[in-house]
């Protein structure tokens, strides 16, 4: 894999993992509204 491939892979994976972490953090820290 060339350098652009690695950069693209790392950016994509870290973007997805950051988005997932952010979303799940907000979901689990949110208080249930009854």
């Amino acid at each position: 894999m060339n350098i652009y491939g690695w950069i693209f892979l790392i950016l994509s994976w870290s973007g997805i993992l950051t988005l997932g972490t952010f979303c799940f953090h907000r979901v689990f820290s949110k208080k249930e509204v009854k």
Partner: protein
Amino acid sequence: MIPYFVALLLLGIPLVWIEWTLGRYGGGFEHGTAPGIFHSLLQKNRFIKYFGVIGIFGPFVIFIYYTFIASWTLGYSFYSIKGVLAPLGDQASIQSFLRGYQGLEQNGFFKSIAPAYMFFLITFSLNIFVIYYGIRGGIETLCKIALPVLFCFGIILAIRVLTLGAPDAAKPGWNVGNGLGFLWNPDFGALKSAKVWLAAAGQIFFTLSVGIGVILTYASYLSKGDDVVLSGMTAVSMNEFAEVVLGSSIIIPAAFVFFGPIDIQAIARQGAFDLGFVTMPLILGKLPLSSIFSFLWFALLFLAGVTSSVSLAQPAVAFLEDEFNISRKRAVGIFAAVGFLLCQPAIFFLGRGVVNELDFWGGTFCLVLFGTIETILFVWVFGMDKAWEEIHHGADIRIPRIFKFIIKYVTPVFLLVILGAWFFQEGLPTIFLKGVSEADKPFVLWTRLGLIALFSALAIMVKIAWRKRRKRA
């Protein structure tokens, strides 16, 4: 991958928010399917509800053939653990195995379609069982078990593939790093190809289940204060993790490592179908403990397939329940009887082009058409300001304002361009039966007539339901 991420941002994420919001909004009017949800957007208009017929028709048509295909994964997991698949070392043997299993030929592997039919019956019954127990008792329970198991299987397989290195010492270039490169090295020249952009957009539709009508039904069970922005984004992030992080670490790198840079291009051109049932067993057969990994892989696909086929049944069942006021038990009974009958041509005339025809109308055309219609109705008929406010109702986070512009202008234009380009490139040749053999033409035309009859029956049912509703009012 660049067009894929562009389509995700401009098409996928906006459509997820649109569908979740539309579903929740319609649910507030006690409508769980597209006809009622569209009617609630503009109650003065008598015709708007008929656009929603596509949102029941499409998933029902996909269900008809998808259940049979999902059942193959159950069959493959059975034959994997039995040790039948692992010794099949070449593509011709696995193709022969698949054709025998599908009942397309009698060979050393299968004398009839009976084993495949038995796995279909198990899969169909499991679907009906899960649908019968409803969202909470059925789908929620299945997902709570199936999804964590599925992710664990995926992670195990990804680790196994990523640690393969270069298994053939004589071919050091056939390694995992170069396999990842096949997928991730940007090819800027390909960005000029309309076909690449269309394929990326199509992938986004399938992967996020947008344009089908299923999310509308699921979201209709939400309450007004539920957060669709965060829920939608969470679903997108999980989906992308499964598809991009796990998916890209398994099939393509493994295929590259075992088949090399030349053959993998031919494999990639064969499409998902061959990749799933011909190439994957070959790849899995080359791993140590191949029977176990093969069983895990197909069991994983089966669990994923059942969660999908169960969701495809939801709009039709919810339509009967909501608009005809009948019990879930009866609605599931009617759906099971009609669905079972309609599945038969897909099973017994698979080799006659019936499944391709169903997939073209239900699984391709309806997705793009329905996605376009719901975006235009939500943004331009309901009104962008109201739509923006509705999306943010109960939201924990604010969507960046740039998405207001994207949802209003970019997404509908993108969808219309896709619909137009796709119609001329693929739609017209298919409509005029290009490439269909003379022997298969009657089967394809009968399938088409059947689809017209099904669509008409659903449209008439919408008319009857609204007449009954008016009388009750």
